[in-house]
């Protein structure tokens, strides 16, 4: 175990491991990533080759590229709209909730790549993905339970009194699923890029 510690500590920046007495790898559950106390994932991989380590806190440095930033700034609204389009068109053509949700989640990934993951995480925050996921699932279960309360079966759209209830019910469920998937993809992206968070995403 000490060999791994030595190898990984070699290239880590001086201020990376703050307050971690054992240094390097042991990553306790109490630590989170706000102080960037995680190990430097780019520092030394298994073969010992050093990676870029100059960034403060030991993250891979965010390279600011005006081309990428401008392109992303222009493209992202269209990608978002396309994601919504795919979500709405699940019934008659290829598409649906999951695919649209992944595309909408990709919007956040694009922003993260262009403007820096830490900045994007600060902008979106840890609560929004959780809230979006919760909202989506509760909408889905609400539509299902609502039809039970109105006397029909679970997810039996026809008992809702609106005209074309099946069509609108399915659309709404697709949107809810899209929200869930977008929230999950975003949350996963932030969790995995934080590096070394104990435990995977619950879903």
């Amino acid at each position, binding site marked *: 175990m000490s060999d*791994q510690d030595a190898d990984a500590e070699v290239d880590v920046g001086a201020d990376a491991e703050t307050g971690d007495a054992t240094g390097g790898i042991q990553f306790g559950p109490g630590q989170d990533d706000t102080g960037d106390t995680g190990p430097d994932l780019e520092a030394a991989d298994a073969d010992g080759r050093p990676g870029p380590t100059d960034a403060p806190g030991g993250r891979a440095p965010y390279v600011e590229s005006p081309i990428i930033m401008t392109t992303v700034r222009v493209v992202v609204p269209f990608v978002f709209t396309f994601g919504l389009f795919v979500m709405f068109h699940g019934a*008659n053509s290829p598409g*649906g909730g*999951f695919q649209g949700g992944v595309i909408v989640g990709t919007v956040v990934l694009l922003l993260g790549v262009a403007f820096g993951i830490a900045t994007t995480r600060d902008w979106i925050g840890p609560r929004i993905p959780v809230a979006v996921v919760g909202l989506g699932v509760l909408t889905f279960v609400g539509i299902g339970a609502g039809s039970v309360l109105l006397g029909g079966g679970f997810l039996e759209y026809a008992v809702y009194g609106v005209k074309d209830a099946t069509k609108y019910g399915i659309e709404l469920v697709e949107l809810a699923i899209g929200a869930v998937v977008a929230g999950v993809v975003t949350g996963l992206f932030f969790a995995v890029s934080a590096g070394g968070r104990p435990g*995977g995403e619950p879903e």
Partner: protein
Amino acid sequence: MSAVVPVGIIDLLATRSYYLVTFLLLGVGTYTMIASDNYVKKVIGLNLFQVGVFLFFIAAAYVDGANPPLLDEPGPYVSPLPHVLILTAIVVGVSLTAVALGLVVRIYAEYGTLDDDVVREVRADE
């Protein structure tokens, strides 16, 4: 997908090619999972294995010259059921990959390496 039984190897390759690719993918996926040391490569092998299964479903559901099952399109229609099944299975596969990669990141944070042999040695010493 023809309903005729293929005669000879050329006929088999021509008509049942999708199924051959399916089993090729299953084989490659299994080999990758067993033979690679790196955990990320094992997860990739797992994904290949699952893609093989998806290809099997889709190849079985293909109908030559058929239309989507909408009222304003003429028959014959393609059954939407296998496609929906595979969409569900793809979602399942994506979430599995997500959990697997989360675990891989955590293993790297704990052990500093993604090599299966090294991790096993370290755990044997613990």
